[in-house]
């Protein structure tokens, strides 16, 4: 604002416009929070009985697993990749946990589930980092592999039954004092860790570096394959956590539990301002993006829109937000 030269009315107007844009580009979170507030305000105007903490806790309860799942997309998109295996991997974690709980107890079951997701992530990482397979293809193939393996596993485990331990259900899907969603106990430290790593830790910087210009990063001495390998293992683990939280929220587990959240997880990251081409974005926007999508779903439900109209509006709004975002950031 201060550097705008006042040579003429139109010129200074344009300069003010540009600096306003720059201000917005540096703080993409501002319009997102405004949009979220707008949606909540619209919802509360339409349905005044929802102006209470229980509704808010419900929104948070559903937004948390989506935000964790979207963290996978945010991190991989920062390097110019994408992880389409998150839904299959998350469902796998939920299903392994639920079927192993009767025999092994919940703690071992969760550890087994997370080990499986880390293994899936490792295979993704080897394919993408070492063999240079396109992330879209590698993770797509991985999701087919995981889905098939889980269906075979399901037939083997048909007698064991599936159990969501009470503790897990409380932690992932419970509410305390009527307004506090217990899953925040997991999510807040996790989100803090991701945010901190992206801003202050070398690994986070490397993700941006690889996504921004992989060749430059390699010439600067970054071992790109190690970064990608670690990244996809982390992505697998995060997907595993998200799957377990989903199982706790819905109190069910199946091999297709998380399937319908794959596209919303990508959408949350994109709405949150992470570029699919890599090098630009962050996790705070993604969290708001996940909240926006959850509130939007709630709003469309409250409006008693029939399912088809709901889907159409959902898609149209994602596209509109992404287009507005590109408009703002491209003209810098």
């Amino acid at each position, binding site marked *: 604002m201060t550097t705008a030269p006042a040579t003429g009315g139109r010129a200074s107007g344009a300069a003010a416009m540009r600096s306003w844009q720059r201000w917005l580009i540096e703080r993409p979170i501002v319009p997102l929070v405004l949009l979220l507030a707008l949606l909540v305000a619209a919802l509360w105007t339409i349905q005044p009985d929802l102006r209470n903490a229980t509704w808010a806790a419900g929104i948070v309860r559903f937004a948390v697993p989506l935000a964790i799942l979207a963290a996978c997309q945010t991190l991989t998109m920062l390097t110019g990749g994408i992880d389409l295996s998150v839904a299959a991997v998350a469902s796998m974690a939920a299903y392994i946990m639920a079927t192993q709980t009767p025999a092994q107890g919940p703690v071992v079951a969760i550890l087994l589930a997370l080990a499986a997701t880390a293994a899936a992530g490792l295979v993704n990482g080897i394919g993408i980092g070492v063999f240079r397979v396109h992330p879209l*293809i590698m993770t797509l*193939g991985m999701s087919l592999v995981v889905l098939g393996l889980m269906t075979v596993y399901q037939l083997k485990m048909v007698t064991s039954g599936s159990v969501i331990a009470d503790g897990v259900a409380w932690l992932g899907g419970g509410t305390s004092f009527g307004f506090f969603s217990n899953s925040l106990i997991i999510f807040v430290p996790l989100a803090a860790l991701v945010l901190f790593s992206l801003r202050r830790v070398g690994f986070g910087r490397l993700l941006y570096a690889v996504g921004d210009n992989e060749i430059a990063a390699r010439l600067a001495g970054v071992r790109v394959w190690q970064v990608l390998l670690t990244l996809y293992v982390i992505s697998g683990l995060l997907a595993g956590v998200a799957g377990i939280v989903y199982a706790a929220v819905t109190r069910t587990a199946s091999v297709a539990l998380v399937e319908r959240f794959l596209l919303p997880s990508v959408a949350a990251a994109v709405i949150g301002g992470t570029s699919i081409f890599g090098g630009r974005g962050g996790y705070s926007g993604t969290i708001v993006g996940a909240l926006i999508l959850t509130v939007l779903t709630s709003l469309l439900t409250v409006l008693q829109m029939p399912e088809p109209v709901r889907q159409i509006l959902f898609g149209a709004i994602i596209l509109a937000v992404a287009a507005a975002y590109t408009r703002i950031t491209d003209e810098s």
Partner: protein
Amino acid sequence: MSAAAETAGRPAGGGTRAGTVRSLWRSAWTFGLVGLLLLLFLVTRAIKPTYGASELESLAIGALPIAFAAVAQAVVVISGGIDLTIGSVMALTNVTAAALMAGGSEEFAVLVVVFVLLLGLVVGALNGLLVVITRVPDIIVTLALSFVWAGAALLVLKSPGGSTAAWLKGLIDDTFLIVWIPEALVLLLVAVGVVWLPLRRSRLGLSMYAVGSDRLAAFRSGVAVGRTKIAAYAVTGLFAAMGGLSLSMSTGIGIPVPGPYTLLSVAAIVLGGVSLAGGRGGLLGPLLAVFILALIRADLTFLNVDPNFATVVQGVILVVVVMVGAFATLRRRTA
């Protein structure tokens, strides 16, 4: 354009020796796929000696929607985009056809087919238009629009229903001339050929390869990039509509829920040698890949392998083939 008869690769191959070698290399992937397909047929005969015309026919009918989806995806990826709406557009055109044909006469169904093909063309053009004017990455735009078209399909038909004209179903339920050629295969080749062969030799087809290969270079050479992209998406929509009609033919009804065709189409084009970076590949490779995948699935069934395990095998094949392909390209570049 002298080497336009080559089976895969960019249409512009030079007449020089180096050009011939290059076009041979580009066709190598396709030849490999043909070899693999023949090998698989031999394996299938070995596993199940009675494998014959009727099995071949059901193979072709089962693979028909996937084949149209793969062709649709190939066109748009060659032009440097990607279309995640294919499954939804197939569902939309499928239910539109089924709803309009319910209670209508056989002659009216001809009009319905024309209408549905036009619908696919328009929906595809709309996809392309939104990609061009919003400047949002293709994958995001089509991801969002996949919700829109799936919702539209549900608006047309709430639950599976409608019907399909008898002559339309009759198009694929028999063999053509001799017992070894399924009608579904003939229909597929004719439908794809009628659209693609003239297109690829046209100015527009060349522009598609140019835009997919290097957008900026194409722009500077005077190609209307935006219009070419919209046209590519429109052709993709047209092929997706054919896929939707083929669903009508094989099921006889309309199902308003998108099948797994979008993801299968991406898998097929990658196996078929179409580069996700754009500008490279043809339609024959993806078609061969679809039949290879279908045949592997059938073989596993004959071997009494758990059908769910077939999904695992499909995923592993996809990844391994791409790895081998990446290695081959790498070696070629360093050699």
